[in-house]
């Protein structure tokens, strides 16, 4: 208890002592009651995401921080917390990347010699041009960011097929350049494994925000019908301009996943 300003009189000293005692009683009650309270902290610990209240959506970012974070050299936190994803106009897609080494999760471990990080892994260094991130695309339902248009689905990347935000998945946002008519769209890969080039993100105050998907590198086209922004019409895939061709990848001796097989990637249906 600080004593720098107390008012002066004996009566007031008595009052301040009683106030401190009163708070002690209140604290005793709070210590008994608080463990029974359900707070966002429990949700964070369990990796679950609160739903239904806009305020709780904000906490989901923090929850995602607890569940999966990418630590970038330099001390920055990259949290996969909320999602912004857009689908653009449809169109054929040129093959933009390939990989010959798949991990046990069906996602390449490397593309063109560059390691593919998984959801929940730590990025070892902040690389120029971002990093490769692999995961299974899922669609968010209730945690779309406030700035997302209502008609636009929001997407995330999960560690396994069928995983979502409640089971270890992360939200991602999509880089939108005003000059780019065909931003990367994840709708075509719903439920599918993908590898994207992503960049870390922090808000102005230094707190983390979802990684930004710059381009979808693998597979080059979805292997099942894509879904449009409104859930009914086909969506565009990857703009050729946004995804420069990536050479085929060999298996490097320093593969981060020694147990990986050499199963070829899924064969695109589209020609």
């Amino acid at each position: 208890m600080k004593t720098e300003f107390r008012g002066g009189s004996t009566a007031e000293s008595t009052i301040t002592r009683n106030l401190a005692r009163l708070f002690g009683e209140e604290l005793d009650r709070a210590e008994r009651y608080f463990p029974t309270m359900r707070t966002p902290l429990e949700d964070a610990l369990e990796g679950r995401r609160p739903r239904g209240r806009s305020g709780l959506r904000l906490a989901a970012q923090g929850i995602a921080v607890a569940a999966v974070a990418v630590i970038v050299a330099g001390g920055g936190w990259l949290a996969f917390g909320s999602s912004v994803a857009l689908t653009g106009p449809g169109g054929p897609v040129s093959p933009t990347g390939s990989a010959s080494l798949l991990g046990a999760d069906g996602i390449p471990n490397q593309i063109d010699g560059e390691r593919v990080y998984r959801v929940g892994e730590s990025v070892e260094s902040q690389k120029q041009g971002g990093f490769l991130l692999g995961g299974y695309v899922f669609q968010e339902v209730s945690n779309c960011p406030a700035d997302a248009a209502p008609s636009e689905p929001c997407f995330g990347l999960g560690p396994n097929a069928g995983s979502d935000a409640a089971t270890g998945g992360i939200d991602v946002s999509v880089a939108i350049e005003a000059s780019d008519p065909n931003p990367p769209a994840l709708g075509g890969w719903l439920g599918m494994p993908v590898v994207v080039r992503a960049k870390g993100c922090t808000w102005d105050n230094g707190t983390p925000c979802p990684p930004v998907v710059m381009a979808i590198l693998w597979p080059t086209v979805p292997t099942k019908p894509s879904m449009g922004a409104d859930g009914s019409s086909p969506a565009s895939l990857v703009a050729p301009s946004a995804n420069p061709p990536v050479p085929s990848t060999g298996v490097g001796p320093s593969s981060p996943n020694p147990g990986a097989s050499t199963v070829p990637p899924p064969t695109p249906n589209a020609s």
Partner: protein
Amino acid sequence: MKAITTSLERDDLFESVLPSERAATPDEWIASLHTHGPMLLAAARAITRDETEAQDLVQTTFERALRAAPTIRDSLAIRAWLLTVQTREALRVVRRLRRTLRFDPAIHELPVGGPETSASFELDEALGRLSRPIRAAVVMHHMVGLSVRETAVALGVSENTTKARLKTGLARLREWLDED
């Protein structure tokens, strides 16, 4: 007050807290927040005099803290920051609600209950009669134990204003307790 709200919205309160060499892991951060829960709840109850609002304040404070991620390392700084977020939210909520409705103080400031002695009951009752800004100052400084400066930050006012509120608060408490 507008400046305070703007400041809070920018979350730049974080910039004023102590840096550290190592960021806490998410689990460490959550555990650290959890230890402050009872203190936050007790302070919220003392300020709001309403159990539901107090619990909502604690929830909101934790939500904001989770968004902040482990950016604050020093335990005392975390405590002060959490109290600041919570107190400003408590005062902000009242300002917002007052734009749309008028409070019946008899309803809004129902004591949470539980003082164990007659003296405590009388003091608690008198505390409930203070206006919320003055009560928040008294709670933060005389009950929770924040310094005047920390209390001023928590309230979003100057130290002089804080001292004035504390003086007014104590004077009114003394007056009301003397009446009884």
